[in-house]
């Protein structure tokens, strides 16, 4: 899938990938890749600046920790991030329902 198509929805998907609990950058990327059946194969580098932006906006919170001798930065949703995710989800449902209604051929009622 083209990167531009994805761009407008990246924030929402990043937030969604943290809904179940904290994850670090690489795990988030793998979750996006696996969750989309391999459709969203972003250059991994783009995930990190996006996470930093969400952190600055107060939607996620990053914390450094050391696991098995390796320093890792895990991100988790803040309450504001959770609210933003709910809002994005609602908007997406409305939008996709409308697009589906317009793009999908409707079975025409048979008139006699």
């Amino acid at each position, binding site marked *: 899938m083209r990167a531009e198509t994805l761009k407008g929805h990246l924030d929402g998907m990043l937030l969604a990938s943290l809904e179940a609990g904290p994850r670090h950058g690489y795990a988030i990327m793998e979750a996006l890749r696996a969750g989309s059946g391999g459709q969203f194969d972003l250059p991994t580098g783009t995930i*990190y600046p996006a996470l930093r932006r969400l952190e600055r906006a107060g939607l996620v919170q990053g914390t450094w920790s050391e696991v098995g001798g390796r320093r890792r930065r895990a991100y988790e949703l803040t309450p504001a991030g959770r609210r933003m995710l709910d809002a994005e989800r609602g908007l997406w449902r409305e939008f996709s329902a409308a697009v589906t209604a317009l793009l999908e051929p409707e079975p025409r009622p048979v008139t006699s």
Partner: protein
Amino acid sequence: MTAGAAPPRPGTPQAIESYLAQVAGALPGAARSRGDIVAELRSGLLDAFDAYRSAGLTEDKAAEAALREFGHPRQLASAFGPELAARQSRRVALTLVATGPLIGLLWAAAAAASNISIRHAPPWQWPGAPAGSRVAFPLAAAAIAITVWTALFTVAATGRLARWLPGRPRLAPTAAATAGFGAMTADVTVFALLASQLLTAPGTLAPAPVAAAAAASLVRLTLTRRATRRCLAARAALI
């Protein structure tokens, strides 16, 4: 907890370290932010490396695959451009907001201690006010007003408000640099006033409070000049 410049982890494949060095070299902005970003990228690259290793690749092939996944170092560095510009701008704006009132108070104390009587009248009508006050005071006031508004805007735009301002990476460094120019204009104007008073009536000035205020202004002027340059550099680095 934030990380400073992260030392290379022993056992990190050489290819990954030299890639990280290339990214770090291409990242604009303050060293502290760079160290933090490089440390996070290193951990991500090692995660990718481990994943390819467990998939059965040799060390060299696994490092190569991990690097391919992260993309060209220059491209990766430029993806951080808006973020680093926003951080740099926020730091400058917060510093200006914090130091502004302090410097204002120091100058007010210096004027009060000197033989200049503050009255309920425009400053240039105060007895003993320096020559050139009629031009300098309105200029300084305008510069301070611009600084306050643009600095507060920068703080807002790089914080919570960033949620609603997507895709405008130039906004924050432009506003922060404007605030920086405003603060420098105010400082230079006050120094011009001080020079004018020193030349015409040096005896009216109280040495210690004036020296303290001048030192504070001078330090801020120097730091603001450097910070403003950094904001402009970060802005120029955005694609």
